[in-house]
């Protein structure tokens, strides 16, 4: 009777989309405008004087920062449905298992929103393609059909750098994703801002701490540098697992009124 059901997940997703459609439409519009700014306004010189290949490279190079920032915005939305007392009552009392409710939010924030994000990039490119002839003499072809598959490939299977770098990059991205998920569960309201501030504070402390050690750079013996990257990646992956477990625990322990803790006072 308490097993998970796809039908209930479907209803939870539909409820979420119907009841928060304004917020999600705003998010879609925001992403669209962000993508439009990036691929259109940020590179006017390529639009005017250079070929499509240079324009494509410029957009492609600036896209990773946009992807990372957007991903963090999505993940910070994971527990936005628990931001007020009324919302918590509604969410916690929904007749579904904890797993179903978590899965529904996870699917929406970590699968649904990224799809919306890709649609936003494509839409922005189409708008740029349509508007360019009106503003400039020459125009450049649509790039989304090439850009999106390459972005997906680069972040999943293909990596033009070293394998170790790829491993470290993936470990770091997993760590930062779970860190923001934990931040969302912890803060719920303005989670993105608060988690970012915590992250920055943590990095400053880490840098101050590491200044006390003589860390070998890339120029030193390769083996030492490789071992350090593997160790760092492993630490990040272990931390990711810990953070994910903490996020689930925080989610399971959410109450309608929190007893005041240090993070409630922030």
């Amino acid at each position, binding site marked *: *009777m308490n097993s998970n059901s796809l039908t209930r997940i479907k209803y939870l997703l539909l409820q979420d989309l119907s009841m928060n459609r*304004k917020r999600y439409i705003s998010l879609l519009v925001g992403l669209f405008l962000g993508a439009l700014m990036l691929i259109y306004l940020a590179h006017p010189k390529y639009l005017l004087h250079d070929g499509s290949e240079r324009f494509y490279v410029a957009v492609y190079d600036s896209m990773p920062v946009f992807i990372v920032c957007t991903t963090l915005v999505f993940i910070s939305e994971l527990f936005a449905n628990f931001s007020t007392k009324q919302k918590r009552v509604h969410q916690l009392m929904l007749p*579904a298992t904890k797993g179903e409710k978590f899965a529904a939010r996870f699917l929406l924030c970590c699968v649904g929103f990224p799809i919306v994000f890709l649609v936003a990039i494509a839409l922005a490119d189409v708008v740029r393609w349509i508007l360019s002839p009106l503003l400039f003499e020459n125009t450049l072809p649509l790039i989304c059909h090439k850009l999106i598959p390459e972005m997906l490939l680069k972040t999943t299977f293909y990596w033009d750098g070293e394998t170790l770098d790829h491993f470290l990059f993936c470990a770091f991205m997993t760590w930062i994703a779970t860190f923001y998920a934990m931040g969302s569960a912890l803060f719920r309201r303005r989670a993105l801002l608060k988690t970012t501030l915590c992250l920055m504070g943590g990095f400053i402390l880490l840098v101050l701490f590491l200044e006390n050690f003589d860390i070998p750079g890339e120029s030193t013996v390769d083996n030492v540098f490789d071992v350090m990257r593997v160790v760092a990646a492993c630490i990040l992956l272990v931390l990711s697992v810990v953070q994910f477990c903490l996020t689930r625990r925080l989610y399971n322990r959410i109450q309608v009124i929190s007893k005041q803790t240090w993070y409630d006072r922030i």
Partner: protein
Amino acid sequence: MIKIENLTFAYGKKKPNVIEDLSLTLHPGAIYGLLGKNGTGKSTLFYLLSGLLFPDKGKVIMNDINVTKRQLDTLQDIYILPEEFDAPKISFEKYVRLHAPLYPRFDHEQLGRCMAEFELPMDVDLKSLSMGQKKKAMLCFALATGTRLLLLDEPTNGLDIPSKAVFRRVVTSCMNDERIIIISTHQVRDVEYLLDRVILLKNSKLHYEGATADITERLSFAVVPTSDVPSTVIYQEPNLAGTAVVYPNPGGEETVLNLELFFNALSVQPDLVERYLKA
């Protein structure tokens, strides 16, 4: 049946207990009135009963399951209608379409009947409704869920005068032998004819729990001229029509419960009232 065992709760380690060592058994087929002054923990008790808060000590057991586990079976059997709620900006019909499938015993016919009683169309847009109308719509939904435990926090707040009578009618029509309805309210006049049992909280503790029939069997409530106050009076308070009095009912005569008067009597003369109630 719901068993509340030694329930204790405070909103922080250094804060005073809002609920203290409360033990109680709630039996199905009864409408309970939860009464108490402001800040005595009525809403907190609702949250503890529904698993929205975790007690510091004690537990709430519903169908042999601790409600804090928030298991599917438990959630399908509890509906809480808070005093203040966020009505989503969608039509009521859509709200029902999205939420009703999650309640296995949801009764669409019951919902239709309740909505008709309140003269609300099913396709009404929740966003366009006044607070009172939203409350009526959500109340209809709550009653139609078919949950065995229904918690209504100040359900008559915001309802117009005719709707209060409709409220009593629809609650009665939705009652069955398996269901427990608990109504927390300060508007005792709105619900006093509805209640089967009364739970009274005082200073974070259970002050009284009993059947309304037992109260009226042992106590009489009346308004008499100030000069004719009976000598056996337990509690009296002046009002515009004379003096409202509570006095013993040794013959067990049929009398009408005045919940406000009973509440005041129990607050002012707790020992005396309890002595007559136990007699």
